[in-house]
């Protein structure tokens, strides 16, 4: 079917990259001037001059006979990546600088200096796991680069990770590559979403992950380099680059290390988070999720707070967002230990807190939006469509249907399980809410296995 695709000048490279990735590099594409279109699109009258300026080009794109290349394009050849590369400098520092320049010029690095991934260092990294270097974990979006253990090891060396961390990095990559994790959206969207990486189990302490004051900050090699290894792995295996096919408009606030931290199971009044995900106490796991900018609650060291007050603020925050993609929504509430203990003292278990949040955040039917973002129709129509096509699970559908009427209260998530409660932070501390406003699922927990250099994670 003949067609034409409109995009804007800022997204033309992205559009052509995606077209090539999907095997149709010749799709006829017209790029509207971004500096004019995004302002003018607010109403039909203002956008009309742009339509007029592009009308003839559009007609031509729809009717002009194909060139031979458009009709029968050459088949894409396998992109052969260079084998090992030799870089010579006048001394070690010079050679290392040249490696850094080469990698950044090739879009293989993140802008910070990298550790040159020599075969010796990569082999040492691979020694951190029993898994074969040739094992394929999956294809990394958006370009579907093949993620082997060896390739992830190369990126982990570049990030400055220790071989002991490698099994944690591999488990996290398995989470990103799960078919229920919408990696394409997370690594490419204009929303600049940031992965959240939570390590649970004895291996967190053994590797010295920070779960206390400054847990999202600098100073802990495990937090910093595990997150960076994942960032570099996604960048190089999925082959994304800013302004080309990573179109996060502001860039991620945690661009280099993601939100990587460990749960403080020792100070938590409840069972480890991973137990709530079906794992055994003592299991070592990594949870990968995604978030917009987190919201901070509580008083920290400067203002009084109550545990119930924190929860009330969280409820208000979530309820004010309204019902947004309830089929896929998840919230990660990171409570600092003092707050968690206070809640436990008031009788909350993790489960009862999940149920409380589920009930209290429900939105009155009358407040459902009249128009769904990124779509057509009302929020009620969207929820009904989500039920009809199974995105809202059959066992939860009736709750939504029963409440889609005046006086009803609509859940913002499918079930209480979609509130993920993790204990981490300082004393004093703040509480964090990570929310990912994506339209698909992006939350997975995977078990760490195959470790050779630590007591935990075998």
């Amino acid at each position: 079917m003949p067609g034409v695709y409109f995009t804007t000048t800022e997204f033309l490279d992205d559009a052509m990259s995606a077209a090539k990735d999907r095997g149709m590099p010749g799709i006829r594409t017209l790029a509207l001037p971004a500096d004019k279109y995004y302002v003018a699109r607010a109403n039909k009258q203002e956008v009309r001059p742009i339509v007029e300026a592009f009308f003839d080009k559009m007609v031509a794109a729809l009717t002009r006979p194909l060139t031979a290349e458009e009709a029968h394009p050459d088949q894409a050849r396998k992109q052969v990546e260079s084998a090992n590369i030799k870089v010579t400098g006048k001394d070690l520092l010079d050679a290392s600088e040249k490696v850094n320049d080469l990698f950044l010029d090739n879009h293989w690095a993140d802008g910070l200096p990298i550790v040159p991934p020599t075969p010796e260092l990569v082999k040492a990294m691979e020694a951190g796991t029993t898994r074969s270097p040739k094992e394929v974990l999956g294809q990394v979006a958006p370009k579907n680069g093949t993620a082997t253990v060896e390739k992830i090891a190369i990126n982990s060396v570049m990030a400055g990770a220790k071989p002991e961390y490698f099994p944690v990095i591999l488990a996290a990559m398995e989470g990103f590559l799960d078919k229920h994790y919408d990696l394409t959206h997370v690594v490419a969207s204009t929303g600049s979403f940031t992965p959240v990486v939570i390590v649970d189990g004895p291996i967190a302490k053994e590797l010295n992950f920070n779960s206390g004051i400054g847990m999202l900050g600098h100073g802990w090699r495990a937090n910093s380099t595990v997150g960076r290894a994942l960032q570099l792995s996604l960048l190089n295996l999925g082959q994304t680059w800013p302004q080309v096919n990573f179109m996060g408009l502001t860039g991620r606030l945690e661009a280099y290390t993601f939100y990587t931290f460990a749960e403080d199971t020792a100070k938590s009044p409840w069972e480890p988070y991973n137990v709530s995900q079906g794992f055994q106490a003592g299991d070592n796991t990594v949870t990968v999720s995604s978030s917009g900018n987190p919201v901070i609650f509580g008083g920290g060291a400067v203002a009084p707070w109550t545990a119930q007050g924190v929860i009330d603020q969280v409820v208000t925050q979530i309820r004010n967002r309204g019902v947004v993609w309830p089929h896929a929504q998840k919230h990660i509430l990171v409570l600092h230990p003092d707050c968690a203990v206070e809640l436990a003292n008031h009788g909350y278990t993790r489960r009862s807190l999940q149920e409380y949040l589920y009930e209290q955040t429900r939105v009155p039917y009358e407040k459902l939006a009249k128009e769904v973002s990124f779509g057509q129709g009302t929020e009620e129509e969207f929820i009904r469509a989500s039920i009809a096509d199974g995105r809202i699970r059959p066992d939860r559908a009736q709750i939504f249907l029963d409440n889609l009427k005046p006086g009803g209260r609509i859940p913002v998530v499918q079930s209480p399980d979609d509130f993920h409660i993790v204990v981490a932070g300082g004393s004093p501390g703040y509480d964090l809410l990570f929310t990912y406003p994506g339209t698909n699922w992006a939350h997975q927990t995977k078990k760490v296995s195959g470790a050779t250099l630590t007591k935990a994670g075998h």
Partner: protein
Amino acid sequence: MKRNTNWLLAAVLLIGGLCMAGSAAAQVTLEVMNPRGEIPPPKTLGISPRGGNLDGKKIVLIDNGKYGASNFLDALADMLKQKYPTATIVMYPKPAAQTITDLPKWYPTVKQQGDLFVFGVGD
């Protein structure tokens, strides 16, 4: 004097040569591994044949749901109707928030709506 100059030149060249030899000897070569993954190439397809003009055609305008796309396509529909009065305009918005796995089921339905399509506005 000339002899002294020659000696001086020889000495400079010798020292320079030694320095170069010294730096050549101190050169360091790093062998590094490529961090990128191999990408299995997709089958490359040509685009659909086209020709003639828009008279009498059924043109499907697909709103991708991004803010303002409907205004753009509405204005485009007006202009198409004005310039090609015998053409039929079909507004066929992309369903809201389709999951990635759902989209392959939806795209073939576009073909049932008309002869040509215009999709916009992508970002």
